[in-house]
């Protein structure tokens, strides 16, 4: 047992309980109790009107058999495969450029961070104008440059259009995390290597890249978690009639099944599916961390 810290005496044990009570309540209601409850509900058929009926694994089998439930999973995985590398690579590139000693760093940092503080709802409204097929800003520019206009939310393009907006909204946060990582690399390393005749490429491969791996690991981790929860831009940009979406993702589908269709069991099975995939990816990441991440 960790023996550092101040020992509570007498009545203070009660006060320790008070300090910890919200956290413990949160662990029960907000986290583990909820996972357990969701798991239980996922084995039932429940519409809130009649009592739940135990259906075993039926909801889970439907996840893979019913195309309406499989499509969101496929979309989420595609989204993640594009979004996570996109955010990590672009925000690392921006951070590396900003880490060069140039003037105007503050101004650039503000510009790149601005989308992070903006609500996705507000940003999506303006992106809707930018992406517009006939009167959108982007097609206006594309046509001025002499190319054919693009239908940004037609079948194949919709997913990529949504990914672009999501990346746009996330670069700022990654930039800050990578800048902090880059600035924690001691300057002496570069100076010593330069004296030994290393060129810029070698400096990057031999010093920057290995020493930035903890930040890359951390960013990949949180970006993946965020990716599986991405919802707002998708809701705002791909909504169609009757509350459907042209690019439904898992979170969208959970919301829709639970709160539009009142299929609590099916929605819960999807939530568990989401949690299991995220957990599996986390295990993979931590395994990769042991092998590839360099801690000083």
């Amino acid at each position: 047992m960790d023996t550092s810290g101040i020992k509570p005496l007498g009545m203070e044990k009660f006060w320790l309980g008070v300090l910890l009570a919200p956290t413990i309540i949160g662990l029960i209601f907000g986290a583990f109790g909820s996972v357990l409850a969701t798991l239980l509900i996922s084995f039932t058929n429940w519409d809130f009107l009649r009592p739940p009926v135990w259906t075993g694994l039926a909801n889970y089998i439907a996840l893979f058999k019913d195309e309406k439930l499989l499509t969101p999973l496929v979309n989420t995985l595609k989204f993640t495969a594009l979004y996570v590398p996109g955010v990590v690579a672009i925000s690392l590139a921006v951070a590396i450029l900003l880490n060069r000693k140039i003037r105007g760093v503050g101004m650039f940092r503000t510009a790149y961070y601005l989308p992070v503080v903006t609500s996705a709802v507000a940003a999506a409204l303006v992106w809707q104008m930018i992406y517009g097929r006939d009167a959108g800003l982007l097609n206006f520019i594309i046509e001025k440059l002499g190319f054919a206009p693009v239908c940004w939310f037609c079948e194949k393009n919709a997913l990529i259009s949504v990914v672009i907006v999501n990346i746009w909204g996330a670069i700022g946060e990654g930039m800050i995390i990578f800048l902090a990582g880059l600035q924690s690399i001691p300057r002496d390393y570069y100076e010593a290597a330069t004296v030994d005749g290393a060129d810029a490429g070698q400096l990057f491969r031999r010093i920057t890249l290995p020493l930035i791996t903890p930040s890359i690991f951390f960013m990949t981790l949180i970006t993946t978690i965020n990716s599986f929860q991405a919802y707002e831009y998708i809701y705002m940009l791909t909504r169609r009639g009757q509350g459907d979406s042209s690019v439904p993702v898992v979170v969208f589908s959970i919301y829709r099944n639970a709160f539009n269709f009142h299929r609590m069991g099916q929605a819960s099975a999807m939530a568990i599916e989401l949690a299991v995939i995220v957990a599996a990816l986390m295990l993979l990441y931590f395994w990769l961390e042991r092998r590839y991440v360099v801690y000083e």
Partner: protein
Amino acid sequence: MSKSMGIQARRSLMDGITYILLGLGAIIMVLPFLWMVATAFKMPADQYTKTLIPSPATLANFRELWVNLPFPRLMLNSFWLSTLNVIGQLLTCSMGAFAFAVVRFRGRNLLFTLLLITLMIPGQVALIPNFIIFKWLGLIGTQVPLWLPAFWGGAFGTFLLRQFFLTIPRDLAEAARVDGASLIEIFWHIYLPLAKPALAALAIFTFQWSWNDLLHPLVYLPTDLKKTTLTVGLAFFQQQLVQGGKFTVLMAGALVSILPLVIIFFLAQKQFVEGIALTGIKR
């Protein structure tokens, strides 16, 4: 001499490339905001004109938000709910963080590990059971589900504050202990005042999340424009106004809705940056 000139020239070339790349990127980042501002001041008839300077410029779109749409009410709701969330998170996360960082008790590491694990559980897993509990309590259709959970701590805030508390020298607490200070006094008079930067960072993040949240208000208050938030309101107007050909009003609404956070961001850039760095690197 010639070699150092070469290095100089290469350095200026690299600087030039850096500026061009960063500048192009910055334009892409900022253009949507410029477009939002430009459209918000255009006449509805000019909504599709491709100019950055509206001519003629008008405030009619903002007037419409105030007069014809329940915008002040929605802003007030969002402001009230975000403030309650900030209070709840600051209070309960700092309590938990202090216990984890300073107090010795059995099961501390286990409890903290459990808390960290929850960082990896997608929040949507809790959505359905929480909805059911709030339904049983008869709280659907009220604002309670949108602020009550802020009062049961949370992994992110507790972790952020604990990391900060750990940087405060333990000697301070131990000296106060020798002088007879109780745990609560040490918490209130030593740790909280010293943790102002971290508390500010958590306050800003919480306000931002709460202000920008769409999913939860959509679940708990989807249609009641008297009680619901700005984000739900904007999503609701999106459908009406786009069909009515009023992108200008929509952009005015979007602009007003992001203004509070943009202002906070410009006033408190340091807290944003330090807050992210604190959770990002001091693991």
